[in-house]
């Protein structure tokens, strides 16, 4: 079956422009996560969606970052007025059940964002 799909796989943008990153989770997965990974290091939590509950936005680094999840499926992460420090790989993951369960996270291959 299809895994988590992210698009685009690579994005180069100029400083100050807005970007949208898309995530298609595995069908039937109720939980969706966005993480950021810099220089092949550990993952930094950004935001978490679970069903119809209010998202956990506690990891968003600034108000330039926002995300939505439409119809409990596709999610879009938007970064406004991009800065060079936003350059990183943005990873999306979905899981069958939400936090508090032992459901594994299934990750997409990420979007590599480069801000010039």
């Amino acid at each position, binding site marked *: 079956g299809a895994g988590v799909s992210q698009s685009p796989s690579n994005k180069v943008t100029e400083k100050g422009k807005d970007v949208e990153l898309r995530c298609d989770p595995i069908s039937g997965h109720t939980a969706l996560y966005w993480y950021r990974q810099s220089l*092949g290091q*550990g993952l930094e*939590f950004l935001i*978490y969606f679970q069903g119809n509950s209010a998202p956990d936005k506690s990891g968003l680094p600034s108000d330039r970052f926002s995300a939505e999840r439409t119809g409990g499926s596709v999610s879009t992460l938007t970064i406004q007025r991009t800065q060079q420090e936003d350059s990183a790989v943005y990873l999306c993951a979905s899981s069958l059940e939400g936090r508090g369960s*032992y459901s594994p*996270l299934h990750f997409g291959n990420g979007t590599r964002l480069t801000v010039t």
Partner: protein
Amino acid sequence: TQLLEQSPQFLSIQEGENLTVYCNSSSVFSSLQWYRQEPGEGPVLLVTVVTGGEVKKLKRLTFQFGDARKDSSLHITAAQPGDTGLYLCAGAIWGKLIFGTGTRLQVFP
């Protein structure tokens, strides 16, 4: 401050050697997962440990959860070039999954 510290950060070894990667914290986790990530791909789950003192084996990989559920280790026996990748531990705490700093392993033929 980083909640989950992994050591070593980098490890380069020859095929056939054994190695251990550590994941340490001062916090107690309800469960801990280990992932492996290859270049250009997302992390893939290797194992989940839940009980303090639990040991799980996956072929040449042995995972242990500390008795107090604050730390974990991953031991690889007779490493192969296919084991090359970034190893990430992730602990479940406060309803969140927190990832460690990562250990980059390279195994040379």
